[in-house]
């Protein structure tokens, strides 16, 4: 029964991590950008959904959709305000673009989270859950929301997979991540691909944020830890490797859950951090990264 509990809980939290990290790694894969405003966008989407439901009286589905809209808008804005100007700036040397984009997205994340705190205080907010109640399987009572979360994560990841592998436009995205120059030579505008990636990223990050908001609640305090955890998972899996990120997300999810059950909830995050350090040391390209 304990094993089953660990299995279910680890799966739910791992799915959530996976969804959050997928968008993050997608952006890196296609445009080489590490978006440090990631956590802020997740939280903004969740808080927007909370506000729509709590303050404007929208239903759970409408609130969630509204939250996604806000998250996508913010992600697009991130691209236009911070990433694109630096990518195109002739005054920033190529070698330094990375640190500039990191700094700019970091500052942008702070701006977003301060704005959230200003408008809605930094209290943790819970998004109105779409499904309620509990499900009892094998003698373990699990919130239905936990299954819902895992299901939505996998549907979103599945849709992304279908988009990327089964549609023409999606394949162009995938191609751009392998060889941006090749894509340009085929007459496809990279700038449109980048925009498309940021839009998709916006949807993924928002859905992840809103699900987290239903599962646990979020506040502007969550911004830093959320970015850090996406970053860690993505590096653990290998930068730019979507499948690597998915596996790493479950590794971290299960490691945390197992630690909480078997050792103590006080040490929940430590083994995952240790694993990360060990992987960095022995296999710097990540578990599934290619060099």
């Amino acid at each position, binding site marked *: 029964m304990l094993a089953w*509990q*660990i299995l279910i*809980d680890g799966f*739910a*939290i791992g799915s959530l991590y996976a969804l959050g990290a997928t968008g993050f790694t997608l952006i890196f894969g296609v445009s080489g950008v590490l978006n440090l405003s990631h956590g802020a966008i997740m939280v903004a989407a969740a808080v927007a959904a*909370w506000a729509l*439901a*709590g303050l404007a009286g929208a239903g759970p589905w409408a609130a969630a959709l509204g939250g996604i809209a806000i998250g996508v808008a913010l992600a697009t804005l991130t691209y236009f305000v911070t990433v694109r100007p630096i990518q195109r700036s002739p005054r920033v040397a190529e070698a330094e673009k990375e640190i500039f984009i990191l700094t700019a997205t970091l500052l942008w994340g702070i701006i977003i989270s301060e704005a959230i*705190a*200003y408008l809605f*205080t*930094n*209290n*943790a*907010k*819970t*998004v*109105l*859950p779409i499904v*309620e*109640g*509990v499900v009892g399987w094998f003698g*373990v*009572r*699990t*919130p239905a*929301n*936990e299954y819902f979360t895992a299901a939505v994560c996998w549907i979103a990841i599945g849709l992304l997979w279908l988009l990327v592998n089964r549609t023409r436009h999606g394949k162009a995205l995938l191609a751009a991540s392998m060889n941006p120059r090749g894509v340009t030579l085929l007459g496809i505008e990279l700038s449109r691909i980048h925009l498309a990636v940021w839009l998709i990223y916006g949807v993924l990050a928002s859905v992840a944020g809103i699900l987290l908001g239903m*599962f*646990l*609640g979020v*506040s*502007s305090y969550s911004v830093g*830890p959320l970015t850090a955890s996406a970053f860690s998972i993505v590096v653990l899996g290998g930068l730019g490797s979507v499948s690597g990120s998915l596996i790493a997300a479950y590794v971290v999810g299960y490691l*945390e*859950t197992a630690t*909480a*059950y078997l050792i*103590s*909830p*006080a*040490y*929940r*995050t430590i083994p995952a951090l240790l694993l990360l350090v060990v992987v960095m040391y022995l296999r710097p390209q990540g578990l599934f990264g290619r060099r």
Partner: protein
Amino acid sequence: MLRHPLPTLLTSACLAALLPHAALAADPIKIGVIAEAQAVAGSSIAPAAQLAADEINAKGGVNGRKIEVVVYDNHSSAAESVRAFQRAVNEDKVNAVIASYISEVVLALEPWAARLKTVMITPGAASDVITQNIAKDYEHNKYTFHGYLTSSALAGLVCDAGKDLLVDGSKMKSAVIVSEDAAWTTPLDAGYEQCLPKIGLKVLDHIRFSPDTTDFTPIFNKIEGEKPDVMITGISHVGTQPTVQWKSQQVPIAMFGISSQATNSTFWKDTNGATDGVLYQAVSGPGVAVTAKTLPFVDAFQKKYGNLPSYAGYTAYDDVYIIADAARRAGSTDSDKLVEAMEKTDYVGTIGRVAFKPKGDPNVHGLKTGNGYITGLMLQWQDGKQVNVWPKNLASGKMKFPAFIKVQ
């Protein structure tokens, strides 16, 4: 050159230094308020203090001197609070400071209160270390006062309520202590361990969880496996998260104890109602006339600001009166005289009768608690409202639980 911030600062500093500072009799008594505007608990501190100052001024002030409140937002940061404190004392020449509900911030300010010899009182921090530091080096740290309950005092008050409500009222016999792994819960948990067996609740387990826990399912499952009658809580920073999962997982065990965020009137909305049935200790509650001053304060606050004060709002309101009272008795705003007068405080405020523990007590300058002094309340969220269920003479409703909770 003036566009450069440093010269601008220097110029302004220069000007400030040139102004005369001799305290005239008609000079206002200045009280600095350093608080967290973005946090619900902290956001009531400044408005409540202002309300008290306005009331005092409307009645002619203190010995002819008006009270002036100067507000500083500290962004919940200890480092920024230290800067604000220096600004308050050195630049704005405040006579006393009301500071923060966060223990980290108050502890960072304590040495500054000592260095700058300025009276400081916290309306909401709970750490025992604050008063322990005063006991350790009284002469140095005597400027700090603890205007809220310390963790160990809170544990005692929770046990008092537990005896009536849980043991005598619901025939409960066992409990699990659940608290966030933080320094402020160490004395709280020690207090629980000590007093729970005394009131007849067997402590089955003691779980401390990391404040950045992202999933409480393992914790609740473990507790459920131990089959206690009640969970005695010690949560502050992470209040929303465990409450939400408690509800969504339908953990059949009541939560009872400290849950700082549950005292916020917005907590129902923040948790989408998951808090239904949560019992939490507080020094005040909506509609609860702890003293004759409580409800008039709440009404005035709501009329002026459109929302209900947080727990630190009540204490901040009282703290202004306490400082004003001490200044009146001392006939001066000299810090040492103010300290002496503050130590003799015996004032009935919105949360009860306030008096500070004397020199020699391990928690010197902490609030006296128990019969005759502050007893606290035990409130419960019921259908979107905070209902007081304890003590009996102040109760406005009976303890009741949502359907998923099993009570014998």
